[in-house]
């Protein structure tokens, strides 16, 4: 029962790391020794539910899901000695990321408190100072690089003839992308995800393709390899490929 996620939980996470920290705390897991199979399952349940509820496009969560599955796969392999006596735990990098994120998440609550404390106070806004002859054009309080850039963008947008390039709405479905990947894998034994990205114009297509990979991974139609967290992913044929 404890694995049941409620809608209320879904909206409170800032990202995949936040969700993982929540799962670790809820289940009183040891961050040094994360039971990767269990947490991967819980994490995927969450991502599925979030997708169903269309809470957000799940890009960052999907990426983490792939990472978790990769760690899980590596945990099943016999431990390989790295050099002499150092044995690299596949979970180390994830643990470090979680801890680093946790430091800032804690600091965030301090900022929240400071914000609450300062909220009721308002700074005095001086009346514009007009020494005798001064022109009355609007004086900007202070200018930042960002203002210069925005101003230029605004001016140039109004200046140039509105370019009439039609925006084709790309309709991509999960099954289309599964078919597309199947086709590519027929021709090539191994695909680079980064290489695939270059083919796509829109972020939507990237995300759907990623979801397709995830789907195929679960059906064992493909295998996914990644050498390092956030490195390129390599997709190859799985045990049920072509069935």
């Amino acid at each position, binding site marked *: 029962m404890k694995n049941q996620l409620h809608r209320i939980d879904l909206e409170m996470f800032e990202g995949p790391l936040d969700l993982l920290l929540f799962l670790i705390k809820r289940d009183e897991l040891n961050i040094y020794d994360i039971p990767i199979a269990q947490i991967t399952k819980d994490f995927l349940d969450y991502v599925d539910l979030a997708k169903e509820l269309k809470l957000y496009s799940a890009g960052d969560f999907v990426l983490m899901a792939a990472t978790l599955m990769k760690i899980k796969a590596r945990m099943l392999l016999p431990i390989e000695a790295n050099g002499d006596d150092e044995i690299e735990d596949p979970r180390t990098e994830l643990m470090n990321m979680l801890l680093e994120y946790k430091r800032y998440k804690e600091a965030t609550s301090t900022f929240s408190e400071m914000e609450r404390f300062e909220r009721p106070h308002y*700074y005095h806004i001086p009346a514009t100072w007009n*020494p005798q002859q001064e022109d009355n054009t*609007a004086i900007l309080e202070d200018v930042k690089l960002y203002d210069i850039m925005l101003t230029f963008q605004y001016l140039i947008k109004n200046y140039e003839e509105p370019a009439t390039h039609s925006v084709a709405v790309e309709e991509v479905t999960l099954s289309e992308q599964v078919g597309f990947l199947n086709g590519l894998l027929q021709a090539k034994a191994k695909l680079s995800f980064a290489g695939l990205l270059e083919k796509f114009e829109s972020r939507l297509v990237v995300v759907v393709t990623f979801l397709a990979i995830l789907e195929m991974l679960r059906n064992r139609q493909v295998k996914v390899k990644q050498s390092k967290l956030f490195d390129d992913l390599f997709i190859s044929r799985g045990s049920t490929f072509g069935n």
Partner: protein
Amino acid sequence: MIYLYQGVALLEINELKQIVEALLIATPEPLTEARFHTCLGDSGSKIPLQEVIRELASDYEKSGRAFFIKEVAGGYQIVTNAEFESYIKGLFSKSGKLRLSQAALETLAIVSYKQPVTRNDIESIRGVSSDSSLRTLLDRKLLEIRGREDSPGRALLYRTSTEFLQYFGLNSVKDLPRLREVEDILAEDDNELV
């Protein structure tokens, strides 16, 4: 003195004076009667702002404050007494912060991204004469004149100065943020959980 409304005490005058003072300090534009009543809500609908202002103004005078309440543009504003102008000038001299009019900012933006440019280039983008903003920017050493156009008109070419780069912590004009770089940030829709 206590303000009454339908026989009910609303706000005591000293409390009212404090509220009006807080509003005068925080207001970004002159405080009007209408705005004052918005701020006070139901309890304020019968209270004349003018009367409170009068009492407050006399307090400021009696206690030798360096500011007074000025009636301006249909509202009230706190401004400093004229005798301190010579000191106040110092706040705006060689200020670390840039204070530019919208016109000057637009001109500066165009020169930054399109340099070197002629006055004509600038004016055709802005659609208005940009003489005085160019002069302001040259005076403040944010722009400089660098040579002339290589065409019949031989118009003066403007570009940003070293001071401009230093102010924004840039090594060269190439380091200006490019629009493409921040397009993601500027995109209206995004995938982040808010």
